[in-house]
């Protein structure tokens, strides 16, 4: 198992290298001069030349890339052009925020999506199935930003139950932290819940029509035992793999959600960085996201192996 994990990690390295090259290259293709974006209204030629020289932006792109890569290898992600803070510090500051948001959204999604999927599968064609499907379709079709603003207007402005935006660390003030995160996590979770529901449903349907389930029923097991013990465990495998893949979607969704609820997380960091042409920050965030994505996939694979003895043998 450990060898398997080590192998996977090794394979991940070239992927990360390619990702970082792509992002670096793509950023250079972006129209809009970072120096102009930085200079703002004080954009007379002298100031521009001074900033450009300070940031070594006159060097050829490959040289700039290698300089950046050299830093990363030594744990130095560079400094933000906009605020002068080290990128690694920014990332460490924002990462826990987005992880909290993502985990809470995932919990929402799993709590809603998986049971709904099971029920829809068991009651296939029934009223509950239709209801779940319609709700799921709505969850998928309602845009995050719209739902977010509507929720703010309803829950915060009209009802005054939850703060409209902001963030507090869970270690500083857990209650306030949860209060500020409930709405964003819900908004971010709805789309995922829908996807999870659809996949749980189809996966369950596949399993429920399998021969061994018929056998289980024939043995006289109760409906509950058949559904939860025999079907669900097997149906869960593709759902777990999917959840890991959804992690990417979650991060993409976090970009929008964090903008609406002004949560100082990863998504807001990268959006602001792109608009300000803050190259070092964009690079650092994308690299971290790629690492996170690869790790999530690895974890999903490991969990599948643990859940499925047949795959253990295949290692």
């Amino acid at each position: 198992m450990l060898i398997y994990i080590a192998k996977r990690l090794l394979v991940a390295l070239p992927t990360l290298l390619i990702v970082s090259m792509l992002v670096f290259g793509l950023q250079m293709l972006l129209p809009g001069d970072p120096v102009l974006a930085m200079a703002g209204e004080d954009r007379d030629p002298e100031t521009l030349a001074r900033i450009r020289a300070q940031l070594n932006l006159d060097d050829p792109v490959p040289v700039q890339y290698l300089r950046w890569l050299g830093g990363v290898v030594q744990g130095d992600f560079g400094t933000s052009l906009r605020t002068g803070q080290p990128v690694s510090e920014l990332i460490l500051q924002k990462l826990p925020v987005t992880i909290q948001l993502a985990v809470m959204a995932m919990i929402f999604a799993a709590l809603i999506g998986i049971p709904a999927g099971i029920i829809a599968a068991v009651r296939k064609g029934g009223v509950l199935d239709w209801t779940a499907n319609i709700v799921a379709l709505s969850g998928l079709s309602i845009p995050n930003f719209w739902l977010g603003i509507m929720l703010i207007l309803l829950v915060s402005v009209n009802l005054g139950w939850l703060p409209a935006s902001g963030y507090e660390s869970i270690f500083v003030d857990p209650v306030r932290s949860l209060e500020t995160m409930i709405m964003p996590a819900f908004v971010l979770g709805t789309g995922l819940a829908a996807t999870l529901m659809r996949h749980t449903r189809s996966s369950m349907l596949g399993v429920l029509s399998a021969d061994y389930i018929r056998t289980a029923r024939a043995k006289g097991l109760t409906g509950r035992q058949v559904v939860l013990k025999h079907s669900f465990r097997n149906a869960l495998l593709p759902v777990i793999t999917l959840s890991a893949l959804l992690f990417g979607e979650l991060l993409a969704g976090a970009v929008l959600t964090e903008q609406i609820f002004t949560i100082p997380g990863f998504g807001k960091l990268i959006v602001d960085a792109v608009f300000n042409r803050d190259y070092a920050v964009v690079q650092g965030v994308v690299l971290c996201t790629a690492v996170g994505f690869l790790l999530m996939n690895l974890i999903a694979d490991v969990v599948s192996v643990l859940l499925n003895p047949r795959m253990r043998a295949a290692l």
Partner: protein
Amino acid sequence: MTRHLLSATALIALMSALPAGAQTLRIGLSDDADILDPDQSRTFVGRIVYAGLCDKLVDLDAQANIIPMLATDWSWSDDGMALVMDLREGVVFHDGTPFDADAVVANITRSMTLPESRRKSELSSVAGIEATGPMQVTFTLTAPDASLIAQLSDRAGMMVSPTAAEAAGAEFGQNPVCSGPFKFVERIQQDRIVLEKFADYYDADRIAIERVTYRPIPDTTVRLANLRSGELDIVERIAASDVGSVSQDAALQMQEAVGLGYMAIYANIGNGDRALTPMGEDARVRQAFSLAIDREALNQVVFEGTAVPGNQPFPPSSPWFNQDLPVPARDVEAARALLAEAGIDRMPVEIQHANNPVITQMMQVIQAMVAEAGFDVTLRATEFATLLSEQTAGNFQLSRSDWSGRPDPDGNLHQFVTCEGGINDPRYCNPEVDRLLNEARAANDRKVRKDLYDQAGVILNQDLPVIYLGHQTYIFALDQGVQGFEAFPDGMIRLQDVTLSQ
């Protein structure tokens, strides 16, 4: 029961133990500030934070006149080559360092020499500064520059603690130490900046607020929702489309001030190949374009009447506005006649603009207006950083962008329309305009300056390298509990005399 009673009593005791005036003012900003070092920063919202954090040598009043702040008095030498400033006694920085002539010298020197400084061009007319008394400094200039005082009413004139600045160097912005009414407590990037009242502030009687929190919330709808839900007390720059609902909300109030800047369309006159069209080569075509625009209708449709129509770099309410050139009414016939004179029946025009909803709407209205005069406009919406790059590089025919404005008229004109102007993107060059604007910069007599600007205004109104459309208004929405707040034409939030009641 007893236990409940006990805890209730304890709670009441605790509540009454809290000082009644422990007030936190929460302000919603439309963007996150950049680095909090007056010498390095560049954002508008950063300046709003400085209004609480860092005092300046001079300040602006609500009519944009220069008034004393850390400098109590100043005078020019007869030849305009020296500026003498007397400094306020009894001022200390947040770290206890006393404010004196040496501190000012250290500050101006830092602004002029720190490699990361963004203030160099603002202080380019300063040759040197020296302490000519314990509480007096003298600036010597390379050339007379009447706009210097106005520069000192902004970041170039902000005084940071020389002790802290020397210790921190370029890292000063992580923990800024100034002499303003509030001192720095903490900052969480993209989330909040917290300041608390500075007990030793020289004018502490005018500060009633104990703590200020600035929170960046870029979305105007969300910013306003936060005000309505009671999460914020003041929000800056609300959208014109929200003005109606805010003024009808009994829990909210509104304050506004016409800004110092302008909204305009820049014409490419001489910046590369794209200037080589009738639009760039023939002033009559630009005059026709300008005449085809109904500025008041633009204001009503796009800004719900909150902006101010204009045709000069200063709003009609400004003392620098040339009254002989009133904002023109729309005249399609005259526009058509001018085009015909230039030998044109219809002509294609490409206008680039920033891709935000308000500006896009504005441009679509203009597109429809000028079509009637014979201009077939193609709109090219780009994201703002790209727009600036294209504008600088000369890759535009007409480009729509804004200027936030400066209190001195020089700041709204000189760098845009003089031949060597730093941000003269149209590359307009007229020696007569250069002469007038240079003389106006060198003159210290207000009447003389006004006359020179009026003359330059007449030429610019003919040549139209910049087609001015109007002036934005800074609109603040406040909770009814906020008292004593006043909107200023520079859009800053000054916290003197502001009180908060629940």
